[in-house]
């Protein structure tokens, strides 16, 4: 050992470098810890405040009643309203989004128009969600399109606009992962392009497309601003997407400023419910992506 330690062939790591390494590692650990603090606090606070509401009888089975005294009611209409609005938004955004992504990867490729589309999709990703709400408000709500001013389906449209760029971008990434050799193999067999898309490209990318779509749904589900100007708030349960509806984000928005403790508690319960719904979607998305055949 002592014979080699003085060798200049393989000098020892200098003390300065070791120290620098330790300091930098420590800083990065500290940053990670700092980032985790609010996250853990949010989850802790949500559980702490929300779980007691969850335990209240009728929390999931009654609608808010607007009474000034006594039991303020549960959040059934908010949960179902959110599910209805988001379901319609999904039906609009996902097929359109995947179609645009398919066009970009299979046909547009590097054409200038495809790049223009990509650019606008990127811009749309960065548009604040309230702008989508305002857009729908100006174009559909004020003019009472469909007979009523505020309506669930208008909220769905605003959410769909918000989800669209997310679906397009995530789908494009996944579709680009489908090996070109598979398209080539199918082309060389004499297959028309639409059949290649339908039978080779989409099935190969399926789990990735599902994952991206679920994440966009989870994103849309938690948005408040697009609903603010489009759906408004209601207490009652309704299946009519052409009327004002209740939804979880709006319920939270309305409840949290209430002077009544019971109503504020309901807001926390609703918030926990919303986080739970989003978490479930994320877990499903992860499970699906794990089964992916693409890496």
């Amino acid at each position, binding site marked *: 050992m002592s014979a080699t330690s003085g060798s200049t062939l393989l000098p020892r790591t200098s003390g300065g470098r070791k120290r620098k390494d330790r300091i930098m590692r420590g800083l990065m650990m500290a940053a990670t810890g700092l980032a985790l603090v609010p996250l853990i606090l949010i989850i802790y606070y949500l559980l702490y405040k929300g779980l007691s509401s969850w335990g209240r009888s009728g929390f999931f089975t009654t609608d808010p009643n607007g009474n000034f005294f006594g039991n303020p009611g549960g959040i059934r209409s908010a949960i179902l309203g959110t599910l209805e609005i988001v379901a319609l938004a999904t039906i609009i955004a996902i097929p359109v989004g995947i179609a645009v992504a398919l066009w970009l990867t299979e046909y547009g490729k590097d054409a200038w128009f495809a790049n223009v589309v990509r650019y606008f999709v990127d811009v749309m990703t960065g548009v604040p969600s309230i702008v989508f709400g305002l857009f729908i408000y100006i174009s559909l709500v004020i003019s009472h399109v469909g007979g009523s001013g505020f309506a669930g389906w208008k909220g769905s449209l605003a959410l769909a606009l918000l989800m669209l760029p997310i679906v397009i971008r995530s789908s494009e990434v996944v579709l680009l992962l489908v090996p070109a050799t*598979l398209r080539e193999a199918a082309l*060389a067999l004499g297959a028309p392009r639409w059949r290649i898309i339908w039978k080779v490209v989409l099935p190969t990318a*399926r789990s990735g497309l599902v994952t991206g779509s679920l994440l966009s749904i989870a994103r849309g589900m938690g948005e408040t601003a697009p609903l603010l100007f489009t759906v408004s708030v209601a207490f009652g349960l309704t299946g009519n997407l052409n009327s004002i509806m209740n939804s979880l984000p709006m319920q939270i928005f309305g409840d949290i400023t209430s002077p009544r403790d019971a109503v504020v508690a309901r807001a926390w319960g609703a918030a926990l419910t919303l986080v739970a719904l989003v978490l479930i979607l994320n877990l499903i998305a992860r499970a699906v992506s794990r089964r992916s055949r693409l890496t």
Partner: protein
Amino acid sequence: MTGPETTSKEPEKMSSAPEQSEQEAAPDLSAMGERRQGHGIKVKDLHAYYGSVHAVKGVSIDFPANEVTALIGPSGSGKSTVVRCINRMHEEIPGGRSEGSVTLDEIDVYSPDVDITAVRRMIGMVFQKPNPFPTMSIFDNVAAGLRLTGTKTDNLRERVHRALRAVGLWGEVKNRLNSPGIGLSGGQQQRLCIARAVAVEPEVILMDEPASALDPISTLKVEELIDELKNRYTIAIVTHNMQQAARVAKSTVFMLDGEVVEHAETTKLFTNPSDERTERYVTGKFG
């Protein structure tokens, strides 16, 4: 592989039981019907470009029916491009275009009133890397050619089984036709891809270095298969492996820098080439 009780499920298998397994292991082209006269390909004055790169410069090659023609030459000599111009796959590459004529018998493959998908159905292709469809089972992979081209057939099952027998894969996969095609070994995958090409019943099969990603034993199997396939198909094979060309091809084309240097009977090209550059290449002095 395992005995007659599994084969009894297959009514279209007719040959007598004892030789069964041996017969299943070897390529059995009789499964595809009688030996038949194939159709030749003539390439004339072919120029091909990648954007501004002139990759193939006035190539003329005859690929006679029912023969194996090998294309050899160093990387970048344009062998693959020539082959990809025959089934019009070259134009799928961004910036790819070509001039000149390619005829299947007397039909111009590039004629404006010829359907490009019909060209590719008639002229099948096998690629360097095995590329079975990852979402499909072994059966579906072979059926893919028929399904993707919208070919209506009442005997899909039978055609798939025939194609698998033709490439000598039947014995290895008959008990797991529904398992994924990518679960097979590399050599098996490549034969699966050949089965997929054969199932469409093309006239010509183009092979772009079909064995270069395979181990020696799989390579041997593919070469044996090529030897069988020529009884029914016209075959053009691009290869980097000169021994392979010597083993499978009746005639061989030596290409260099996008031009044909020499096209001759394989034995002559390797033993007594008329061009000095060919001699230097086949003896390993350059390239």
